[in-house]
């Protein structure tokens, strides 16, 4: 049916909700028909603390997108984030069934099922399963279909989250009479836009630094093999400044955007700036470097934390693609330099996808655009009933089943 070419995506972030509606013209290349945005209150560090308020904000964004696109949707892709989201590795293995020891479609499906059948701790549900690699009799292979071997193994990276918190987000869409067609970890959505396919194959770390949280995804061989969320984002930078300089949060936010930098070395030691700009009591001149020092301490710590989470994968040898920064807070001056220094690889800011309208050509929209891209790819697959199994798929029928 024609309507199936239309796809929508909603990203609920800490500071804003964005809804985008697109039409799939080529696989994975949706054309934007409309988008809506509304600022959110009621989310701190990626966790919903006031569901009703958040719900209203999200509905406002969806409604704006629908008005612009002049159509109503029945289902949308939804991003998932928050500190409750975790990841784990697992391996599924099966003996090759057929007599001639050639791997069949069925073997691959059973191996995948075995990997995905790992029980999660109570209250957790899977969000995404990312296939990493196949091994046939211990040898890594790209696509084992039709190859000869006895034992087929498959490595998966699973992303799971707290069931009730995921339900909260889905319920926001349900309240707007929308089904959730895909549930995708926001880090993976952003990674699909921010990093190129070549980078993802070589090994790249994508950091989506939002207002409340930072999602990291490490790609290797084209697939996400390590993901996570760190509850530190741009709000922390603002709060640190507000605290260190004794100014209000709003002034601190303004200061961060106008004069913030994460790389003190690049700032002249004698530079002084007015802290509020109104030159009243309380306003004073401070060293520009002090602002950068406060920010660099926080951002450096964030990068160090991600580096620690990556463990031995943080080796520059395993990260030839470098580090890609995306998300609203990645616009901060000097952040790429700092990331480059901490990780010891080249770091760059993400670029908007080619041909995107200028309003959406900002790093804070990579999640929602990535959702749309992954969602449309998924839709293509379903439409074509293709057997392709690779890539990230939102498999959460268990959750949706329980939701109805």
């Amino acid at each position, binding site marked *: 049916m024609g309507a199936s070419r239309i796809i929508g995506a909603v990203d609920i972030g800490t500071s804003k909700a964005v809804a985008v509606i697109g039409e799939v013209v080529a696989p994975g290349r949706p054309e934007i028909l409309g988008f809506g945005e509304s600022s959110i209150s009621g989310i701190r560090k990626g966790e919903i*603390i006031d569901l009703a308020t958040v719900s209203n904000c999200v509905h406002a964004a969806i409604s704006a997108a629908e008005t612009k696109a002049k159509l109503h949707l029945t289902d949308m892709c939804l991003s998932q984030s928050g500190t409750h989201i975790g990841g784990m590795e697992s391996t599924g293995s099966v003996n090759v069934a057929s007599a001639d020891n050639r791997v069949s479609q069925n073997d691959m499906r059973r191996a995948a099922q075995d990997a995905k059948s790992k029980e999660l701790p109570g209250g957790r549900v899977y969000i995404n399963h990312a296939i990493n690699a196949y091994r046939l009799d211990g040898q890594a292979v790209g696509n084992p279909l039709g190859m000869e071997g006895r034992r087929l193994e498959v490595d998966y990276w699973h992303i799971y989250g707290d069931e009730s918190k995921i339900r909260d987000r889905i319920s926001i869409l349900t309240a707007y009479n929308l089904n959730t067609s895909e549930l995708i970890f926001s880090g993976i959505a952003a990674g699909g836009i921010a990093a190129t396919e070549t980078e993802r194959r070589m090994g790249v770390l994508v950091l989506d630094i939002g207002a409340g949280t930072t999602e990291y995804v490490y790609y290797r061989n084209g697939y996400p093999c390590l993901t996570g969320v760190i509850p530190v984002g741009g*709000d922390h930078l603002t709060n640190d400044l507000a605290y260190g300089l004794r100014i209000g949060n709003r002034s601190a936010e303004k200061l961060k955007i106008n004069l913030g930098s994460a790389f003190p070395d690049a700032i002249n030691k004698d530079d002084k700036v007015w802290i509020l700009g109104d030159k009243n009591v309380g306003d004073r001149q401070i060293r520009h470097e002090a602002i950068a020092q406060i920010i660099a301490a926080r951002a450096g710590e964030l990068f160090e934390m991600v580096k620690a989470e990556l463990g031995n994968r943080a080796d520059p040898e395993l990260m030839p693609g470098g580090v890609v920064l995306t998300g609203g807070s990645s616009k901060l001056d000097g952040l790429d330099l700092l990331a480059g220094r901490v990780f010891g690889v080249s770091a760059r800011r993400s670029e908007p996808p080619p041909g995107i309208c200028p309003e959406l050509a900002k790093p804070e929209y990579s999640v929602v655009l990535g959702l749309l891209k992954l969602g449309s790819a998924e839709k293509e697959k379903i439409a074509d009933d293709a057997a392709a199994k690779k890539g990230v798929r939102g498999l959460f029928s268990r959750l949706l089943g329980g939701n109805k």
Partner: protein
Amino acid sequence: MDTDLQNKAEKPAVDAEQPTIKIIGVGGAGLAALARLHASGLKEAQLCALDTDASALALSPVADKLMIGQSVTRGLSAGGEVDVGRRAAEADRDRMVTALEGVKLVFILAGLGGGTGSGAAPVIAQVASQSGALVVVFATMPFIVEGARRHRQAEDALKYLRMCGGDSIFTLPNDLLMQSLGADATAPDVFQLAGQWICRGVGALCRSFSPKAAASVDFGTVQKLLVGKGSKTLFALGRGEGEKAFESALDTLTGCPLLRVPHATAQTGNLLAYLCAKPDFDIALLNKLSAFVAEKFPFHASLSVCAYGYESLGDAVEVYLFGAGEAIKPKSPAKAKAAEEKTTSVTVTAQEEFGFVQKEAQRGYFDGTEPNVYKGEDLDVPTYLRRNLKIILN
């Protein structure tokens, strides 16, 4: 304006009718500030050292010593336990009552966060308040890096102080003081600065209604100013030397770290501006000072100005600003001007001050959310604080 310009030479000595002032240093930080006041040769007030620790008291140069809680601590320190400090003070309440008899104005100097200061200061405030004295507290607040426990103790002590009858409580957060010092400042430097500022502030307030003041306010005015229960308090000071001493004093006053809080201008009602200079200073400076303060604090309800002449200052000029009481609400300029004429009297119960490191300031925006604990550290607390990095602002 309440200023009452008087000629020093013509003023007869009426010391007998002057209200008795007693300055009580409580605990380690309090004794240190007291020792400094003693050395400064303040004649207007009696100094009294109060501690649980016999050895600390023995070291104090002040003659009037009051050891409390011998039955509780056996002459040792309170060991950082507020409860011990409080029990020690309660045990010797009668002696405090005697010590404070007939005193009209009591200053309590204490470092909050520890045992004796946090525990005993509220009790003394209560005793003093019950005896009818005006109670003014100068308290230093602990560094953030000293940990959550000391912070809580300091905050609780502040709460008790307010409840127990502290009329005006001026706080000096150590973290703020640290910012005004140079890159290689150490904690002892900060304690010294705190002592110095408290000493200057107390001295200024004591002398503001002294008959020797070049331009004094009467005790009633000071009383009206400081009985600011339920209001914010404000204390800032500046000093200038050399040719443009007065101008640079105003500059440092504007930049005083104790003013570094949001909306500092809009929160205190009754202001007392105070000028210290050599005895033959130009009287026009007083007008300049009051004009300057009136401009910077447009929402004040009343403004008093006084001055004191010091030989020892040379060509240096010191300016002080004290504030308490509710600020008037910002109104249209015409109305604001009308309101400026009449003094508002305020009786609100919960006193807050600014300049104090509040709980919300530690986690700020993230207050009320779950602690963000990662490897034993709360990530919502600024990194530079947890890592103890020194950020030099000036």
